[in-house]
């Protein structure tokens, strides 16, 4: 593996992407943007999986990524449908305006 970037670089990038995603979920207010941030978190995990798989010379990590992509696709289908269902009622997808349920 000479000449290739060391695994720690990939893991640092993946941790950074994960943090951007997590902070985005907490700070952003638009449901679609929040959802994109969640996708970023999942993809950060995918990057970590392939980086570790390369380091350990095993394909396990790369196979796992396929599972995660499938799950993320299913989640996107359901999630966007839910967002549309809310939009039809409210004409907005802003998380701050969902005040019906609050104590």
């Amino acid at each position, binding site marked *: 593996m000479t000449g290739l970037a060391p695994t720690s670089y990939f893991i640092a990038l993946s941790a950074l992407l994960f943090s951007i995603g997590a902070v985005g979920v907490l700070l952003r207010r638009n449901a679609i943007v929040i*959802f994109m941030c969640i996708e970023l978190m999942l993809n*950060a995990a995918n990057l970590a999986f392939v980086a570790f798989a390369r380091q350990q010379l095993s394909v396990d990590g790369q196979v796992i990524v396929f599972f995660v992509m499938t799950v993320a696709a299913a989640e996107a289908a359901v999630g966007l449908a839910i967002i549309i*269902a809310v939009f039809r009622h409210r004409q907005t997808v802003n998380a701050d305006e969902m005040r019906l349920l609050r104590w």
Partner: protein
Amino acid sequence: MTLTDISWPALVPGLIVTVTAVLVLIADLFVEGPDREGLGWISLVGLVAAGIASAVLWGSNAGGFGDTFLLDRYAIFFNLVLCLTGALTLLISMDYLTSINLASGEYYVMLLLAVLGMMVMAQANDLILVFLGLELMSIAIYVLAGIWRPELRSSEAALKYFLLGAFASGFLLFGIAMAFGAFGTTTLSPIASQLAHLSVEQRPLALAATALLLIGFAFKVAAAPFHSWAPDVYEGAPTSVTALMAVGVKAAAFAAFARVFIYALGALAVDWTWIIWLLAVLSMTIGNAAAIMQRNIKRMLAYSSIAHAGYLLVGLIAADQQGGAAVLYTLLGYAVMTLGAFAVVIAVGRRGEPNEEVSDYAGLGFRYPFLGMCMTIFMLSMAGIPMFVGFTGKFFLFSAAIEKGWVWLVVIAALNSVVSVYYYVGVLVQMYMGENPREVQGIAQRPYLTATLLITAFATVALGLFPTWALNLAKSAVQSLSA
């Protein structure tokens, strides 16, 4: 792992549920008219069959697929609890769906798939399988929470649950990635054996994995401070779905939580015990304090379920055979009494009139003695009054923690339990002494609800009076975990 490693016994319960779900999906195409009750019956038969199949395989200790998917006694215990939960939820759904005018075959398919996901979580011995089971369960429940489309509250609850659930999955998945980096595998057995002699390079990644997994699981069991979604989602979702979320999701998440933390990450217990200690204390205190202030019964039950997550974490801290058995036993008891309480909530509601405020229960005890008696049993059991399963469960949990020397934790837990009596008995006071000018009238007798109430009330009392049998079952289940 080779192809010859396929273990059919381990697959049987899950396959039965899968086949039933597909059958219901197809049968839905041929049902004419709005009546979908027949689909409910097919689903019920499937879940009962899966439960029986699990029970028959008790002791078979089937495991295969490179040790990633097991049907040990631990998994079977949870399969039984989950099938029971699913079946009782189906029974209360059939009446509830008619009363809110929601005729949809997809409801039953999603319910079956959610139970399937829960069973995968209980049987998984691999972090990736835990993740897949969790997602199967969660995605089905996002749909169920929002299935009542004309109702804005339902859609909003679905959105909140979806966003926070997916957020939690992100943490869990990143934790799994860190575990994969540390151990080169996601299967729990090799992780457990590698942890026994952890190298210096592995330790930071292993600790990061532990912390991230902990956050992911804490979200799913609704432990404070990761509980904020629960009250909103429980209130907004259709009540039958709330029952499944409060019981099934919590049980399945605890199944995976305990297997991962006690069995695989047990060697790191020094590092994670104090975090769970904090989660337990926060969950109990916040859950009970907030429940006192609630006027809506579904929100009150939501906070009560957060408090119960705290009690269950006390058993997890004990992290031994006795504590594990107490957690399993309490989850069974929690399942029957909570499902029963939600069945009462559904029985009191009527079309276009949810009657979910505690004040709506005024005078109910005298006008509907059967409902009143059942609610009395469930509330007293949750409050931890002796003779009911809620008390025996807490007793086993707390004594397991005491034996491990967690005296202060148990003192806090016991104080919390005393505080909780206030709001549970508050409902009873309303029922038997309260007055409301707008009293709820004309609650029709509904056969499925009555059956559910009879089963859960009987189980709440029977498990409380004769805990030995169920406790021995739980002990034997936990033993198979360390074997």
